[in-house]
């Protein structure tokens, strides 16, 4: 009996020390939490690095190199998410030979957290995409494709929420209009919904209802259509919506040297990033959260 009491007390003391440590930090000093968002887009089945004789991308890219880079970033900050903005499929014989199996398997090994669906992901038809789903150990998010009358029904969510060290990160997906880009026989009964309207719903759900600290849009709409300003793009989306912190884009293979900043409908900053294509770059956005109220007045500094 005495011995049991002693163990109880020891356990309690340990708990107190731990709590005390945490408590002190949250009461007196400011505690910074860092969330790292890593992202790719339009990898287009590029698995092997470009060879030394390639005219444009010699010795660049390669999944195995991306893996070691991601591993080192995760070792430095475990509060890391890895996302892809679509067009995983099509572009090298690996897709033609294996139908996307290897792409999904490798992304699973790299521990991707979520991806959205690009137009080329329909290249073997919606059935071809569905057939590869067992190899994908990450979530697919798409809010403006209504898959309810297709085989993809229940396999794609409009959004997903991750929690890292108490920080809630909501990620939703947007896809491009398929009509004209993809044969109807391939996308079948997939319905395309207005991305701006859907994005407004999503950001409200994530920020207001679900109380997310961050709302991220994984978009395959394309960065900007200067010659066709009526086409919905990431830039247009950023300006027309609110409560989105970051748009990770794809489709237009736009190599942004650094993320761009747009003002949303409320005049607040929205970051847009896109890293070209073929796995030549990895995008990295770090969000720092501070619990020090005195710093809150200073707003958010953006360093790009």
């Amino acid at each position, binding site marked *: 009996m005495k011995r049991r009491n002693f163990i109880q*007390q020891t356990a*309690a003391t340990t*708990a*107190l020390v731990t*709590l*005390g440590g945490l*408590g002190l930090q*949250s*009461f007196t000093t400011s505690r910074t*939490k860092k969330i790292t968002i890593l992202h790719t887009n339009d990898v287009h089945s590029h698995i*092997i*690095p470009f060879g030394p004789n390639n005219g444009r991308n010699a*010795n*660049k*890219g*390669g999944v*195995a*190199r*991306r*893996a*070691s*880079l991601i*591993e080192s970033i995760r070792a430095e900050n475990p509060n890391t998410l890895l996302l892809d903005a679509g067009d995983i499929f099509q*572009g090298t*014989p*690996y897709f*033609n*030979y*294996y139908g996307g199996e290897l792409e999904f*398997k*490798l992304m699973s*090994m*790299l521990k991707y957290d979520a991806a959205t669906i690009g137009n080329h992901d329909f290249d073997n038809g919606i059935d071809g995409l569905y057939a590869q789903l067992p190899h994908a150990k990450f979530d697919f998010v798409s809010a403006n494709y209504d898959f309810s009358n297709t085989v993809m029904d229940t396999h794609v969510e409009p959004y997903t929420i991750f929690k890292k060290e*108490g*920080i809630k990160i909501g990620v939703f997906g947007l896809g491009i209009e398929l009509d*004209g880009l993809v044969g109807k*026989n391939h996308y079948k009964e997939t319905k395309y919904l207005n991305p701006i309207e859907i994005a407004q719903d999503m950001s409200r759900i994530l920020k207001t209802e679900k109380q997310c*600290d961050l709302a991220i849009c994984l978009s395959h709409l394309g960065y900007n259509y200067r010659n066709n300003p009526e086409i919905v793009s990431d830039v247009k989306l950023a300006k027309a919506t609110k409560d989105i912190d970051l748009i990770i884009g794809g489709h237009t293979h736009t190599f942004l040297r*650094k*993320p761009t900043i747009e003002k949303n409908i409320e005049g607040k900053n929205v*970051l847009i*990033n896109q890293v070209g294509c073929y796995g*030549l*770059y*990895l*995008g*990295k956005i*770090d*969000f*720092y*959260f*501070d*619990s020090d*109220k005195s*710093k*809150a007045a200073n707003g958010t*500094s*953006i*360093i*790009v």
Partner: protein
Amino acid sequence: MNFKYFILGVYICFFSSCKQETHLSKIEGKRIEINDTLSSNQAIEDYIKPYREHVEKDLDSVLAYSVDTYTKNNGDLNTAIGNFMADAVFELSNPIFKSRTGKDIDMVLLNHGGIRSIISKGDITTRTAYEIMPFDNIVVVAELKGTYVLDLVSYLQNARRAHPISKLNIKLGSNFELIEATINKEPIDVNRTYYVATNDFLMNGGDRMTFLKKRDSLYVLDYKIRNLLIDYFKKVDTINPVIDDRFIQIK
């Protein structure tokens, strides 16, 4: 016992009254180039290896022999490589089209930009077919009224580019005026329709070949052009295409 209450107190304080709002104070963004300064993850390399070996072995399998090096820049209004492609599309698509519809393809139209690589002198492999045609475009056959075939001819006349054609012959004069346009050696008849084989890229508006939008019926052969080329290379032993008189300017 008192000690336990103290712990409880700490808990209450920690989880309720002392909970603080977090504030997004800073965002940093950049891109990191994936290049040969990064080490490769060995587990990933090992995982890819059997897939890679299979793909490489298959891609390097020799299918035919090319007598010369052919490029799309060698030739003005028709090129040897373009003629080869358009003729191959006719030769392998027509039996399929005929078996499905009982009709013959009248002509083939592809696009110059769709020839994505040269064919080098020597062994032709599966890789050659992937290089020429990395996209998954398929053969489609559009039924076009004679008047729209004339639009097709004036498109080519204005483009002055070696878009690959087969069974269609065009002669232009020194000012690029149309002298003669024939299909299977007959003048184009505005009172009949023609079956024009092309690819789905052009059919869907690629290269602004708008006359294709005015088609009547459309037949989707679901035959990838790359696979057609592979089948063609397997069928023939050697390729030796030439620049001919199918699309010429008489100066």
